[in-house]
């Protein structure tokens, strides 16, 4: 069986985090989302994996190269919708195949379930179905996919993971996959609904925090670094090669810390936190329930909770992130969300800043003692 993973899209709603990498490469528990999908397929014995890449394709290709699982790469030059993406791979598809979005988490067991079916979709019950393709189902078969309805007829949504036959490729004149699926159903091919075991999506940047915490549950205990005196480590904690945990620090799992990091001394890392490679956390700092990308530096005496911090960002000493709820406008949609801070790549903040439920763009510079809230565009200077 073949599998086609669509990883060409940018994931605009995740901006500013998708400035340098596509959504499929967002790190969750220190591994790109795409990794989890490829591994789940591999565990089910699917070896012929085709990945459609487009937005920032070199980043994806470079990462796939480093895996020891061979994948075939197809380039979608311009992002003209998911159906077009699949069309780019059409010449390589020989028979039945699995179709998966590259930017959602799916577990191994669900893939095993859908592999057994011909013409089926994995479904998921979601409390807020309006952001997804809602399915109307009768007798276990899908009647229609209604994409992002204002009034959802039910809570069952499509995960975007399909088991299909090569004949599906005839319906790809539409721009998006759900429309093509509707066309196929209308033409008389039934589509079975198979409930998924575990599926997770991150639509908005703050969803990464939830996704990260969920996937950290599967973390394996690993201690490769140097751990100082009187360090307390409890629960599942993975520490990468070359990392130093300074004396008197406390790390409470589930936590992942990457390679060549320097934490502490006297730091506290609380559950639900991923810290990327080469990150430095200076003494007397607390981090909890956060996703810290690679090459970040967090100053001393800081408190970073419920935050996503982008690659190469420098958070100054005494910074505080402060979680509360407010309304954001993302791609012309108004959403109320509660989190500490989303900070883009290469941001530099001077000491004594307060991040109050804000989305800070890439390359922003913040002077000392500022209180940042709301949305800050890329490249801004706060003085």
């Amino acid at each position: 069986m073949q599998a086609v993973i669509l990883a060409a899209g940018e994931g605009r709603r995740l901006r500013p985090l998708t400035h340098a990498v596509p959504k499929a490469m967002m790190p969750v528990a220190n591994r790109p989302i795409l990794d989890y999908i490829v591994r789940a397929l591999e565990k089910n014995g699917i070896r012929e994996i085709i990945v459609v890449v487009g937005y920032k394709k070199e980043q994806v290709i470079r990462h796939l190269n480093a895996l020891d699982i061979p994948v075939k790469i197809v380039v979608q030059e311009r992002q003209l919708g998911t159906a077009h993406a699949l069309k780019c791979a059409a010449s390589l598809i020989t028979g039945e195949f699995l179709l998966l979005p590259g930017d959602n988490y799916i577990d191994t067991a669900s893939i095993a379930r859908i592999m057994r079916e011909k013409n089926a979709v994995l479904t998921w019950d979601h409390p807020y179905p309006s952001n997804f393709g809602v399915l109307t189902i009768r007798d276990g078969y899908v009647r229609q996919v209604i994409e992002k309805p204002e009034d959802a007829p039910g809570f069952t949504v499509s995960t975007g993971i399909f088991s299909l036959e090569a004949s599906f490729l005839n319906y790809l004149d539409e721009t998006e996959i759900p429309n093509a699926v509707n066309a196929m159903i209308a033409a008389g091919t039934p589509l079975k609904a198979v409930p998924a075991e575990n599926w997770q999506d991150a639509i908005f940047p703050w969803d990464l925090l939830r996704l990260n915490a969920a996937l950290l549950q599967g973390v394996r205990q690993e201690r490769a670094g140097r751990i100082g005196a009187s360090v307390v480590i409890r629960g599942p904690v993975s520490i990468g090669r070359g990392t130093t945990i300074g004396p008197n620090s406390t790390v409470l799992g589930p936590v992942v810390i990457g390679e060549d990091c320097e934490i502490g001394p006297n730091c506290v890392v609380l559950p639900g936190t991923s810290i990327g490679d080469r990150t430095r956390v200076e003494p007397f700092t607390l981090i909890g329930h956060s996703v810290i990308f690679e090459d970040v530096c967090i100053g001393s005496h800081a408190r970073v909770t419920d935050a996503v911090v982008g690659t190469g960002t420098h958070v100054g000493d005494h910074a505080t992130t402060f979680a509360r709820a407010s309304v954001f406008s993302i791609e012309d949609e108004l959403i109320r969300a509660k989190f500490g801070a989303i900070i883009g790549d290469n941001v530099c903040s001077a000491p004594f800043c307060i991040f109050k439920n804000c989305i800070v763009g890439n390359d922003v510079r913040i002077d000392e003692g500022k209180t940042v809230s709301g949305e800050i565009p890329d490249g801004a200077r706060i003085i």
Partner: protein
Amino acid sequence: MCGIVGYIGWREAAPLVIEGLKRLEYRGYDSFGIATENGEISVFKKSGRISENGLAPGTLAGHIGIGHTRWATHGVPNDSNAHPHTDCTGAIAVVHNGIIENYAVLKRKLIEKGHRFKSETDTEVIAHLVEEYFQGDLLVAVTGAVRHLEGSYAILVIAKDDPRIVAARKSSPLVLGIGDGEVLCASDVTPLLEHTQRAVYLEDGDIAALTPSRIDVYHDGLPVERSVTGIEWSVDDAKKGGFEHYMLKEIYEQPEVFYNTIKALEKDGRLPMLRIPTEITVVACGTSYHAALIFRYLAQEYSAKRVSVEFASEFRYYTPPLREMVIAVTQSGETADTLTAVEKAKARNCSTLAITNVLGSTVSRSADWTVFTCAGPEISVAATKSFIAQLAVFMGMVNVMADGKFTEILAHAHLSIERVLQEELGAAVALLAGAAEMFYVGRGVFYPVALEGALKMKEISYIHAEGYAAGELKHGPFALLSPKTPVVAICTPGRTYAVMLSNVKEMKARGAPVIGIGAEGDTEVESIVDVFVPVPEDHLMVQTLTVSVVLQLLAYRTANALKRDIDKPRNLAKSVTVE
């Protein structure tokens, strides 16, 4: 990274294994070896590239064979460290890809039991462990042995009078190919492609017994089924892993290469101990020469060292007074001119330091000291990542000379390199694609950067590009400027900024279209040039790196637009081993 190949079937194994190893050469090429079984185990191993050495036909007979091509990271690539490794009796041969982390402990125990080791590698431990367990059944012996191994491995084992190859893998790749009455196995699909379309991928912890007609796979001692998959790859695809060209792949590896080289220097710790004298002569050719020129500027700027840089090919005719240290820079370690230069320096009682990418290459054996760049095998003829790695070594040296003032800056340089990889360059490429000749200009440390940019453009796009010190342009080449000769000008902030701006204005006045490289958000440069290419504002050293990478990308994209054969440009070879 290393590559392994195995063959069992009805044909002579040795030539097939050699052929397979050549396909895996991109995984490493500093030494190789093969072993066959034909009533007894015969082993042939040698340091050097397999495609240049090869094997005389008929030396190794037998229908069962295993082979290995090595990229040494620990232990020099000499004949005895090359794989396959055998046990004490020479009845068992092993090839291995990966690292055995607990080999020191195992080795000590085995020596206590009376085993004699012939090499310094971790792999030999496996051979002796298998011997320890061997009681007539190779599969049982390997199953027993791998239980003791920690780390990563993909191994192939053959034994005297055993009609099988036993394969095992953990965290290192291994794939089996099923042919017609024959079975092949290798680190990836490339060696299999010519012989079969059917592959079996082993999973972590699998052990497989291969015979010409069947494959038996065991996991935790129980037989398991592993499904057969069709391969639809072409040879080139497999190695480039989705990138259009090796060159692009290597350009994209640069942030990692730079970081790894800097980190390795730090770990190695020899550099601070090395007394760097006040007078240094650097000899190099081609791209390495440009890296050395950059070193000259940086060393002068941040320390009181006097550095002179010479072409290795001219060094034999013009040898400056040599007093203290000669540094030889060569990616392959085999560049003939550079090797001669090292000999000449030694004859004059100078201490010699080699900077090379290939462990155990000729230059590392003849020089007193060797520093390795961690670029990994470079396939594209146009050097990219090896250049960045050489700069990493030179910048590491400058850092040592300046008492570690730049440690922090160098530790973060890979981030800026990463950022410039995102440059689109569409407008610049459109401007250059139609040109027949062009200029690169820069001042100070950016003069050698301009030279290197021009070299890259010449090598792969065949556009006659000339690098110049911006001030020198007025002394002649100005006569050539016209609307048909684009100029790439490096106008990054610093001491050279103001005078570069006035130079650019002069060139614009002669009608030449100008591509300006400047710091992000520099509206002044942006307003006077035709196409503006931003690089992140950073320390001078980091800017030499980012500008170099932008120029590599510019050359690559231009050559791509002109549909040139980028990885194998006409008339050029990867390393020049004749004078």
